[in-house]
């Protein structure tokens, strides 16, 4: 039998029960819409999160004090000397740049305005490692670092809070924990993310923060050593080199480390796992509604088979084989689900756009992503739902005895 003719006939048959068909399609529309919407939102969330992780910089490794496995008898803090050793191109050739830092929080004020922000003490390389530029003025320089200068680079939000503007601020003097600091620059806008707000911070030289603001136990200890590897491929190599350097310096040739190294890839992988699980979870819940839609199709097809028992008997009497009848009913059920799938994709798109708009209104960056894969998958899946839930009714129709079916009232 002709393919297009079968489809045309199926459509005609479905249109003869418009409301019934529409309600059945609606079940699939909601199912597919939910799946598509959830996948798009999930993909958008993943993008936002991985985006904010890659925004931190590229090919980064984070070295912090404290081992994560066994307890080491005499753990040593990380120091600036450790950072210098890591920066040595002979012992760690895979390392491009190193930026030790101390971070905390502080009270900053200007002319009666005051705010609580995070504060970071960094070296000049921090600007390159973390990809932080200035829109005005300059970043912390080697001179500031050597001279323990009381200078500060303001984040955009801090500038806005203290001054009500983000320009023409170089030369102003603000107070951090009551001590005067001269503004030498304003950092470019980083944008907020789910984890942190990098615009709400002030940056001072590492030497300054250590001597004036935050005292640590050992004279030259730091909280974190940021390391930028020479390339994405060099990250695992860099990890090994840093480990070797630090184990030698901390005299822990055997046993556990007294430091931990996290790579950006670790964070990305973790984030992807979390968002992946979230997406599967949301998608799974949505898929259940698609299943319900499929059961709706099965239900309506069973009704249709019973109603059309005589028609089936007649068709068989004039020569329809089992597979002709199967095909007829499977075409109808898959037309129902395919229509539902296509409308559902549009609905899902609308749904995800709506969620995106709500997120934007509440200042969260979430751009829903509807991938071609998801669209194809949803189309195929809805078709499969129609076929799967159509098989039983179609088989019932095909197996009717023609003589019996013709007697049916």
């Amino acid at each position, binding site marked *: *039998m002709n393919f297009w003719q079968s489809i045309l006939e199926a459509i*005609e048959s479905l249109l*003869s029960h418009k409301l019934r068909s529409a309600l059945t399609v609606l079940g699939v529309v909601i199912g597919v819409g939910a799946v598509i919407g959830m996948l798009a939102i999930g993909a958008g969330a993943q993008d936002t999160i991985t985006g904010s992780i890659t925004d931190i910089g590229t090919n980064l490794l984070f070295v912090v004090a404290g081992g994560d496995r066994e307890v080491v008898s005499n753990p040593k803090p990380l120091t600036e000397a450790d950072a210098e050793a890591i920066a040595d191109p002979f012992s760690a050739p895979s390392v491009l740049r190193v930026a030790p830092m101390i971070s905390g929080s502080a009270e900053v004020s200007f002319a009666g305005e005051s705010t609580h922000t995070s504060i970071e003490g960094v070296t000049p390389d921090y600007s390159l490692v973390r990809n932080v530029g200035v829109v005005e003025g300059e970043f912390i320089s080697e001179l500031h670092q050597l001279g323990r200068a009381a200078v500060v680079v303001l984040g955009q939000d801090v500038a806005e809070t203290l001054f009500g503007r983000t320009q023409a601020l170089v030369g102003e003097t603000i107070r951090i924990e009551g001590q005067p600091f001269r503004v030498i620059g304003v950092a470019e806008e980083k944008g907020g993310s789910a984890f942190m707000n990098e615009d709400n911070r002030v940056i001072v030289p590492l030497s300054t923060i250590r001597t004036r603001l935050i005292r640590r136990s050992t004279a030259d200890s730091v909280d974190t050593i940021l390391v930028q590897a020479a390339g994405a491929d060099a990250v695992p190599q860099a990890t090994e080199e840093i480990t070797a350097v630090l184990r030698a310096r901390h005299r822990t040739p055997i046993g556990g480390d007294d430091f931990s190294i996290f790579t950006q890839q670790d964070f990305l992988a973790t984030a992807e796992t979390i968002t992946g699980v979230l997406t599967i979870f949301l998608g799974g819940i949505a898929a259940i509604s698609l299943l319900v839609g499929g059961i709706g199709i099965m239900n309506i097809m069973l009704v249709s088979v019973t109603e059309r028992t005589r028609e089936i008997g*007649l068709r068989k*009497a*004039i*020569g329809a*084989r*089992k597979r002709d009848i199967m095909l007829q009913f499977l075409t109808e059920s898959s037309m129902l689900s395919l229509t539902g799938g296509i409308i559902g994709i549009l609905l899902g798109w609308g749904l995800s756009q709506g969620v995106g708009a709500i997120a934007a209104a509440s200042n969260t960056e979430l751009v829903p992503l509807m991938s071609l894969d998801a669209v194809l998958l949803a189309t195929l899946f809805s078709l499969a739902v129609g076929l799967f839930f159509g098989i039983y009714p179609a088989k019932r129709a095909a197996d009717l005895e023609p003589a019996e079916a*013709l007697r049916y009232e």
Partner: protein
Amino acid sequence: MMNEWVIEAHDITKTFQMGEVEVHALRGVTLRVKRSEVLSIMGPSGSGKTTLMNILGALDHPSSGSYLLDGEDVSGLHDDQLAAIRNRKVGFVFQTFNLLGRHTALTNVALPMRYAGVTRGRRKRAQQALEAVGLGDRIRHRPAELSGGEQQRVAIARALVNDPAFILADEPTGNLDTKSGDEVMDILLNLNKDHGTTLLFVTHDPEVAERTERIVRLRDGLIENDKGGGA
């Protein structure tokens, strides 16, 4: 080589199992029908007429006995093979017309050709069949827009379209008034006269039976009387 006999049924029985009870609808029917013959099967209600027609039309398997349909042994065939036989060799006309309500007369008549796998010239042949039953001007009408007599004529056109070995008509005038009933009979008998179409009627109506040369009477699943035929 054309076989002389379109129907050669020998000692056909059909038993239905109704729970504990066995219903012997046919108890050993032997019937032969020549090409171009016209015959009526009569008998009281429950005598097995429809059961016999279903078996002769290859809609149902007999419980025992042998059956050659147009020279082909159909007793051992499975469902899809029977469907193909029905499609090519048997034209059905039912008391209740059994047209597909959603489709036009033309589409209804073309349906057997679709199942036969005919792809070319379907419209033309369907149109010719409708013209043969005098409905050349009604091809776009749906069953609901046709009178009972016209609907039965569409059904006849549908039975004709694959050029079957014989036409089985179960009470073809049962749902019609006298005038349309006569018209339907005229059309069927003319097909026999003009083209030699073999006709089997199942009927209660003596007026229908009177117009056929041979009458087979069934009672309690057995042939009681067979007159007028050459068998």
